[in-house]
C-alpha cells in the first residue's frame, strides 16, 4: 500500500493546507483587531504593560524586581528614565542619563519626609553634558502600611502637569502591588509559623502518652523500654529539626514507623497497621511532616475512641508523573462538614495537622494538589493527596 503514495503530491497537499490555515488565521487576527479603536488599543497596551510590571513586583522591593519592573514603568510613563530608590540607596535606573543616578537619593528625601510628590527643576538637575536629555525630575512616594518605604522618580526634559500626575498614579499603583507582595509574604509566614506550631503541638498529648507507655515497660521489659526511648528520641529529632522543608517519602515513612511503634506501645493489639507502598515512589520528594500528621489524625480521631481493633492502611501508589499517598482508617469517621471547616481554617480546632498539611501542599504544588478527605460518621476516614514526582524548587534534604 505504501507504494501507492505519490510523495511530491502528498507534500504539496500538506504544505498547501498549512498555508491555507495560516492565511485564515492571519485574516481572523487582523479582523479581530479592526473592532478596537485607537484609544482602546492604547488603554489595553498600557494595561498589558502594567500587568507585565506587576509580575516582577510580586517579590517586593528588591533591586532585581525594581530593575525588571522599571522597564515597563518607563514604557507607561514615557519619560527618559525611571529610577526607584529606598532611603539611602538607588535600587534601579532604567533609561538614559544614568550619570544622574546619585541624585535619586537626595531628591527622594523631601518626598520621604512629607509623603508628597515633588518636582525638581533645572538648577537641581545640573548637567554638563549638552546632549543629556534629563533636565528635570518628578519624585513620587511608594507607600506601604502608611509608611513611605521608597520613591519613584521619572526623569525627563520638560516638566508637565501630565507627567507629575502620571508619576503619582504609577507610584500609587506600584504601592498597591507592593502591598500585595507583602500580603503573599505574610501568608507564607503564617504557614511557616503553623509548621512550627505543628512541631510544638506534637508534644503535649503524644509526649505524655509515650512516656507513660515507656514507663510501664521499664520494669517488666527494660529492653523494649530502651528501644522505645530510642525511637522517641529519633522521632523528636526528626519532628523538631530545623532547616530543610522537603524530605523523601522513604524518610517520612521511617518517621511514621517510629510514631506508630510508640503508639502501639500504648494501644497494644488494638492498633494494627498495614502498608501498601510501590517501591518506585519511595524517592519522591514531599514537604516534611506531610504524612505523619495524617497518620496521627487517623490514630487519634479515628481509632482512639473506637472499641475493638482499629486498622490503619497507608498506601503509596505510582501514577506515572505523580505519586498518590493515602491514609485510611476504619474508625468512627466524622461529619464531612466538620472536615471542611478544618481545611478552610475557619475554626480553631485541635486538628491543626490536616489544615496545615493541606495549606503547605497547596502552597508548594498549587491548588490542585490539596488534601482529599473521604469520610462519614461511622464509615472510617480516608485522607489522600498527590505529589508530582518533580516540581521546580522541591529538593529533599536530610
Amino acid at each position: 500500500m505504501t507504494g501507492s503514495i505519490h510523495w511530491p503530491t502528498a507534500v504539496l497537499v500538506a504544505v498547501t493546507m498549512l498555508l491555507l490555515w495560516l492565511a485564515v488565521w492571519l485574516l481572523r487576527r487582523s479582523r479581530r483587531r479592526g473592532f478596537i479603536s485607537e484609544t482602546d488599543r492604547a488603554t489595553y497596551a498600557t494595561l498589558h504593560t502594567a500587568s507585565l510590571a506587576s509580575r516582577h513586583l510580586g517579590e517586593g522591593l528588591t533591586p532585581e524586581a525594581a530593575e525588571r519592573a522599571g522597564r515597563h514603568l518607563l514604557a507607561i510613563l514615557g519619560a527618559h528614565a525611571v529610577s526607584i530608590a529606598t532611603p539611602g540607596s538607588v535600587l534601579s535606573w532604567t533609561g538614559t542619563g544614568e550619570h544622574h543616578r546619585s541624585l535619586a537619593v537626595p531628591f527622594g528625601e523631601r518626598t520621604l519626609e512629607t509623603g508628597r510628590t515633588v518636582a525638581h527643576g533645572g538648577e537641581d538637575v545640573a548637567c554638563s553634558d549638552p546632549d543629556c536629555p534629563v533636565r528635570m525630575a518628578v519624585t513620587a512616594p511608594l507607600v506601604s502600611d502608611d509608611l513611605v518605604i521608597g520613591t519613584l522618580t521619572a526623569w525627563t526634559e520638560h516638566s508637565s502637569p501630565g507627567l507629575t500626575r502620571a508619576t503619582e498614579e504609577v507610584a500609587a499603583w506600584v504601592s498597591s502591588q507592593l502591598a500585595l507582595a507583602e500580603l503573599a509574604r505574610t501568608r507564607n509566614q503564617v504557614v511557616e509559623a503553623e509548621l512550627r506550631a505543628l512541631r510544638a503541638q506534637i508534644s503535649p498529648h503524644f509526649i505524655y502518652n509515650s512516656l507513660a507507655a515507656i514507663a510501664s515497660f521499664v520494669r517488666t521489659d527494660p529492653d523494649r523500654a530502651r528501644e522505645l526511648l530510642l525511637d522517641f528520641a529519633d522521632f523528636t529529632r526528626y519532628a523538631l529539626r530545623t532547616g530543610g522543608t522537603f524530605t523523601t517519602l522513604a524518610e517520612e515513612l521511617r518517621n511514621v514507623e517510629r510514631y506508630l511503634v510508640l503508639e502501639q506501645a500504648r494501644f497494644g493489639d488494638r492498633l494494627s497497621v498495614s502498608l501498601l507502598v510501590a517501591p518506585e515512589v519511595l524517592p519522591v520528594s514531599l514537604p516534611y511532616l506531610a504524612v505523619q500528621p495524617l497518620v496521627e489524625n487517623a490514630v487519634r480521631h479515628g481509632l482512639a475512641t473506637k472499641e475493638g481493633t482499629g486498622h490503619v492502611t497507608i498506601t503509596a501508589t505510582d501514577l506515572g508523573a505523580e505519586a498518590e499517598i493515602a491514609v485510611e482508617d476504619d474508625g468512627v469517621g466524622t461529619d464531612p462538614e466538620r472536615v471542611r471547616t478544618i481545611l478552610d481554617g475557619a475554626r480553631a480546632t485541635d486538628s491543626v495537622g490536616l489544615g496545615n498539611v493541606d495549606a503547605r501542599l497547596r502552597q508548594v504544588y498549587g491548588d490542585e494538589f490539596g488534601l482529599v478527605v473521604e469520610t462519614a460518621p461511622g464509615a472510617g476516614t480516608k485522607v489522600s493527596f498527590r505529589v508530582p514526582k518533580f516540581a521546580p524548587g522541591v529538593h529533599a534534604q536530610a
Partner: protein
Amino acid sequence: MNHPLSLAAVVLVCLTTLAVGGLGLRLSRRTSDFYVAGRTVSPRLNASAIGGEYLSAASFLGVAGLVYGAGVDMLWLPVGYTLGYLVLLVMVAAPMRRSGAYTLPDFAEARLGSRAIRLVSSVLVVAIGWLYLVPQFQGASLTLTLVTGAPSWVGGFVVMVVIAAAVGAGGMRSITFVQAVQYWVKLTALAVPAFVLLLLWFRDGHPAPVVPPDWNVPLTPTGPGDHPTYRTASTVLALCLGTMGLPHVLVRYYTNPDGVGARRTTVTVIALLGTFYLLPPVYGMLGRVAFPVLPEGVRSDSVVLRLPGDLVGGLGGDLLTAMLAGGAFAAFLSTASGLAMSVTGVLDQEVLRPRLARFTGGDAPGVRGFRYAAVAAVVIPYVLSRVTEPLGVATTVGLAFAVAAATFAPLIILGVWWRRLSTTGAMAGLLVGGVATTASLGTTMARDDLGGWPAALLANPALWAVPLAFAVAVVVSLATPGRIPASTTRTLVRLHTPERVRLARSRIRD
C-alpha cells in the same frame, strides 16, 4: 505460513500484558512491616527493568537482520547500543538522579528554569517517542504476518490496541518488577533457540556461511556511492549519545534512591545488555548458513523467525518459533508501553490538561485527559508506520537515536558539566539539532534518489549534526552571558555533591 503454537505464544504475551496493566498496584506487597515496605528498588532489579524496556524490536529482530544483510560492519550496532550506557554512566547517571528530574523536560526546567525550554523539550520527547514507536509497530506487523499470514496491518494494530489499553488503565508502567521479568523473558526466548540452532550447526559439521565477498570484510563499500566508514562512525555516535535522550530510559532512573544507586544500576545494565547482544549476531551468521539468498519480497528482519523452522523443522521448530515470536512480542510490548507512557505523560501534562481545564472549567476528571493522550500517543505512530516506506526496523530506531543525540545530548551534557550554559544557548542547540536531524530524516524518507555523499550525510546525520548542535549551544551561550540562569551554581553543586556527604551526618542509628 501458519503456526498455531506461535499464535498462542503471541496471544499469551498480549493477554499477560493486559492483565498486568489491569491489576496495577495489586502486585505490590501489602505488609505491616515498615522495613519491608520501605525497601527501595535494588540497582540489580532496576537494571533488569531498564534492560527489559530498552531491548526493543530493533534489538530482537533488527540487529540480526542487519548483520545478515550487511555483514560484519553491523556488529557495531550492538556495541553502540551498549556503549550508550557507558556514556550515561560516566557523564550523566548520578547528576541526573540528583537533579530530582523525572522526565527530560523536568531536567531542562530544573537546570535552566525556563518554561520555553521545557516546552521545546516536551515536543522533542514526543517526536523521539513517536519515531521510536514506529519500528515497534513495524516489527509487530512483520512477526504476525510471518506467523499467521495475517495482513500486514494486523500486528501493529494489535500492539497499538494492547498498549493503549494497558497505558490507559495506568498500571503497566509503574511496576519495575514486571519490566525486570521482561528482560529475562526476552533473553531466554532468544538464547534457548540460539543454543539449539548452534548445536545443530555444530552437528552438521559447522558449515561456513555462504556470503558475498564484502560481507565479512569490515568497512567495504557495497557500491560507488556508499561511505561505510562515515556511516558506521555516525551510527555509533548517534547510539552513544542518543541513549541518554530516550524518554523511557530516563524515567527509570528516578526509581533509584540516589546517585550511587543510579551508577550501580548503569553498570549492571551494561552487563545485562552485553550478554543479550551476544545473541543477535549468532542469528545473523546462522541465517547466512541457512539462506544464502532470501526469497523475493522477504525482509531480512524476519531471518530470526525463519531460522528454527528451516533448521529444526517439525514440532521442535514450531516450539522454537513460538518462543521467538512470543519473545519478540514481549519486546514490542514492553518497549512500546514504556515509550507510550512517556509520550502520554508529556501530552497529558503539557498539552491536554491545560486545554481540558480551560474548556470545561476544571470539571474534567484528570483521568480522561490521560486516556485521550494515551490514544494519541499510539495512534499517530501507528499511522506513521503504515505510511512511511519500511526502512528496516533497526534503521528507523537509529533515526530516533540520531534525533535524541543531536538534541538532548548537548542539553544534558552541557547542562551537567558546563556552568556557562545560558538559556538562549541551550534553546539554540536544541532547535538547531532538532531541525537539522528531522529535516535530513524527512528528506531521506521522502526521496531515495539522492545517492553518494548527500544520501550518506542525510541518512546518518549524527556525525555532523551533533557537533553542530554542541557548537551552536556553546557559541550562543558565550555570546549571551546575561542569560545564564542565576541559580546555576546552586544547581550544579547539588548535581555533583555525592549523597554520602549528607548520609554521613544523618546515619547514626543504622
